[in-house]
């Protein structure tokens, strides 16, 4: 009985680490779709750099999971050989770079992309992680705390970048305002998922691996509201379906992201270059 409970706690611990890792990897992969297609050169480079930070965070977390699992898993097997239902990222991070009612049904990298959607998503997620990473520096999982200390430094610049563009576009031209407002209307309902804790988060909070996620909500709301206000944008009400990507229930878009990301590794397992 005690053993079964310990095993369950260990698997919840790993589930939580995968949640953090998958968030970083999937958003990193999505943002990397801008590489070579950025609206201006500086933003092309900025997006590639942010992706690099995110993929770096994911790598450290996957390496940590692989060590804990000690079953032959590697950072590569975790990134390339798990299926969509095994991924624990927030649904909002896998969505394509356009409000889904305006584009094709499946968000592949070749679709027409909307930078406002990219910026709003980066802002909503960075605003959360700018609170969560510092809290994770106190984690009872020492390796997670070390990774969090590194990521805390990085997310500050991600938030600054997206917040800056959000204000520039919101308080900008009629067209930029319209597009960033429609991106907010589209993405904000997905953030409800941040605040409904799942088993991994509840167990994690109980044993000090992570904070109670709800404890960050008021600060997040304040940051979002203040920024939207400065950007002359309106916040839509928190209504509608609460997504469950972090429980493995994803939108149809994740399979396309993974198809692109995992294709090479799966067609040529062990390939080296």
């Amino acid at each position: 009985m005690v053993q079964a409970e310990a095993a369950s706690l260990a698997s919840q611990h790993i589930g939580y680490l995968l949640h953090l890792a998958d968030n970083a990897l999937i958003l990193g992969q999505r943002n990397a779709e801008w590489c070579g297609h950025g609206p201006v050169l500086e933003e092309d480079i900025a997006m590639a750099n942010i992706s690099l930070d995110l993929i770096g965070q994911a790598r450290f977390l996957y390496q940590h999971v692989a060590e804990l699992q000690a079953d032959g898993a590697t950072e590569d097997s975790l990134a390339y050989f798990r299926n969509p239902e095994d991924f624990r990222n927030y649904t909002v991070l896998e969505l394509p770079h356009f409000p889904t009612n305006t584009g094709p049904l499946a968000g592949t990298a070749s679709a027409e992309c909307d930078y406002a959607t990219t910026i709003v998503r980066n802002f909503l997620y960075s605003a959360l992680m700018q609170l969560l990473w510092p809290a994770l520096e106190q984690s009872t999982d020492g390796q997670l705390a070390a990774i969090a200390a590194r990521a805390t430094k990085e997310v500050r610049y991600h938030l600054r970048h997206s917040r800056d563009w959000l204000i520039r576009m919101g308080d900008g031209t009629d067209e930029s305002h319209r597009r960033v407002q429609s991106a907010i209307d589209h993405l904000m309902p997905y953030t409800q998922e941040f605040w409904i804790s799942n088993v991994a988060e509840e167990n994690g909070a109980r044993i000090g691996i992570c904070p109670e996620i709800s404890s960050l909500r008021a600060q997040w709301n304040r940051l979002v509201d203040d920024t939207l206000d400065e950007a002359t944008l309106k916040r839509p009400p928190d209504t509608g379906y609460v997504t469950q990507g972090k429980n493995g229930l994803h939108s149809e878009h994740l399979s396309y992201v993974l198809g692109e990301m995992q294709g090479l590794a799966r067609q040529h397992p062990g390939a080296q270059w």
Partner: protein
Amino acid sequence: MIALKQRFSMSEVEAILSTIPDPEIPVISIRELGILRDIQVNTDVLGNASLEVAITPTYGGCPAMDQIRDDIVSALAQAGLTARVSTRLTPAWTTDWISPEGKEKLRAYGIAPPHATGSGQCHQQTTIQFAPKKGAADAYSTVAKAQNDNEAIQCPRCNSVNTTETSHFGSTSCKALYRCLDCMEPFDYFKPY
């Protein structure tokens, strides 16, 4: 196969490691950059000594880390030394670890060196805007300009502090793009982390 040298002095090892340049900014060594954290000698049961070099990554996704690891192993191998490179995450690397000599070399290379992480630059919340409708009066006061001398980013070419940020990210994650309003040249600023 390189024969394992069993006797070596620590100063010899340090001298070798001090010559390894950063792959992205080759004017500065990995020691000056503050990546090199520790050197330890491990001796196995047969009395063979090997080195363990601990490095701390600058940025999680820094693609130069693998290169640095290879460079350390091969530089020591050339001197007949076997080494293993380990990654140390705590404490996290900070730009405050870049040595004064390293900062001077960065400046001479055309990169404005980072301010101390405690300075205002790190938490600066200035916004680059184009056509603000709201608060138009202070539109251009929000341009990322230095608030005071402590926060001023000095042009590495003409030393002017009359500079402005053009992009939060430069050619690599660790840098931002700036422009000097006196000599009009663009330059990189190494962001405080």
